[in-house]
């Protein structure tokens, strides 16, 4: 089903969505038989849209991202994306046997970019994430924030229309994370990418997204959605960000509380 949808999208030409998730369910074999992790998720990401998936532990948000990335298959339902999405993880997942620049060049190579263009393109991408001159640096020589920026550059090297991000900033300290929020917003606006960003951090979700989707836990269902109209540039300490965060947090707490009652 996923492939037919993808083909249909190709036929139209310009895709009307970056990702279309239709009635997707996913269950895993657990100790207590089949365990339903995702239940009937339907979600569209429009071209150029920034959507955050928000949820507590066990809501299956990472599972959903894996499904969209094509790393796993849904038990039911269909997913179609506009080309193969790029994926960024909580850990940088850069290859330590390559330099920062060569990590990006590998992504270009695997996409079929000719050899003589790779170096220049990698330099451009490093400049985009403000790491000019880091091409020859080894991964272990970079700080956590720098590694995630190289990982972002490597993801961008795939030239996908859709960038999937699985809590990419969760392991960073607060200041670095804040800076990377600004960077991601800047790059998203410059590149007109669609972003599907998974997090459990409400403020992060509100600060970044145009749309926040709250998932309930066990099984993961779409509980509620908010459109965030706060204009950019946003700051983590903005009153508007704080107010909406309070509202969403209340809802999230309610979702979590339900699990303690039975």
């Amino acid at each position, binding site marked *: 089903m996923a492939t037919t949808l993808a083909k249909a999208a190709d036929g139209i030409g310009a895709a009307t969505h970056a990702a279309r998730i239709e009635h997707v369910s996913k269950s895993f074999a657990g100790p207590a038989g089949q365990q339903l992790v995702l239940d009937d998720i339907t979600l569209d990401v429009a071209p150029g849209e920034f959507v955050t998936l928000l949820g507590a532990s066990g809501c299956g948000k990472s599972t959903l991202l894996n499904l969209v990335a094509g790393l796993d298959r849904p038990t039911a339902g269909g997913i179609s994306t506009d080309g193969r999405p790029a994926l960024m993880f909580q850990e940088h997942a850069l290859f330590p*046997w390559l330099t920062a620049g060569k990590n990006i060049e590998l992504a270009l190579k*695997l996409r079929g970019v000719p050899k003589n263009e790779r170096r220049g393109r990698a330099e451009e991408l490093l400049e985009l994430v*403000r790491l000019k001159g880091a091409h020859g640096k080894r*991964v272990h*020589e970079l700080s956590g924030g720098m590694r995630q920026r190289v990982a972002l550059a490597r993801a961008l090297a795939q030239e996908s229309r859709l960038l999937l991000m699985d809590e990419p900033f969760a392991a960073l300290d607060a*200041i670095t994370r804040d800076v990377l929020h600004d960077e991601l917003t800047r790059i998203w606006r410059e590149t007109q990418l669609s972003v599907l960003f998974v997090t459990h951090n409400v403020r992060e979700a509100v600060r970044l997204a145009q749309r926040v989707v709250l998932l309930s836990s066990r099984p993961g269902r779409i509980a509620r959605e908010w459109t*965030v109209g706060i*204009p950019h540039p946003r*700051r983590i300490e903005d009153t508007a960000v704080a107010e909406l965060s309070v509202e969403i947090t209340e809802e999230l707490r309610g979702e979590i509380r339900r699990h303690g009652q039975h």
Partner: protein
Amino acid sequence: MASTETTAKDKDGGDLAGLEAGLDALETVQTGRRPLRLTLREKVLPPVVAAVLVLAVWQALVSFEIVDDPTKLPSPGAVWHVLREAWLQGELLGYIWTSVSRGLLGFFFALLIGTPLGLLVARVKVVRAAIGPILSGLQSLPSVAWVPPAVIWLGLNNSMMYAVILLGAVPSIANGLVSGVDQVPPLFLRAGRTLGATGLKGTWYVVLPAALPGYVAGLKQGWAFSWRSLMAAEIIASFPDLGVGLGQLLENGRNASDMAMVFEAILLILTVGIAIDLLIFSPLERWVLRSRGLLVKG
């Protein structure tokens, strides 16, 4: 629901870039080379002192006549004399070369066989189930056990030496690669797949380079096994037509009841084994680990 309050916080790009540059500078690990004197003092001096101590004890055992029988324990001077004689007669390098060339060539063949074998065992489930346990079991089989059958199958010749080396080294090399592949973090495989490195591309661009540290450890062990197997083969299957390697030298010393010669051979076998490791495998291993930031300095 939608919040539309405008927040007028001025934040230009330059401010962000500056903040970021500051963070990068603060968090970047400073790396530099060790000064040579420190390396000499911490890495070279201790083993030299240890060797000198062993020599001193040895000399003392002879000088104070604690062991008063040159056929049991020759003096360091006597061993030095035998070494010097062999060198002056131009035979020393010949002994060494005979064994080292056999050892390295045998190791090279073991590399050619062990690498694809290891990859096959690591990546193909049926092959792993079938020969994986045998391969790791073979590692605990002393390679000297292969000498008698190899002599019977192949006769007293160089092929038999190579066969024994292969049987000793191939399992180590293959197992090193298998454990290297097994220890590749699943995250690298996922990252590779999202970048489009699947199938053979995934093996070439992700699995093999990620498995390199384990593979190099296997090579190192494979060399040790090659060298040991070869010495066992040379000692047991000494035959004049094969040329005198270090193992034969040892056996000749025993036949002549010339303890100085036996010590000479043992010293040479030990030295060559250490030298090859120090000159080839340890630098290779250090380079692989250091380039990945896996080598802790100290």
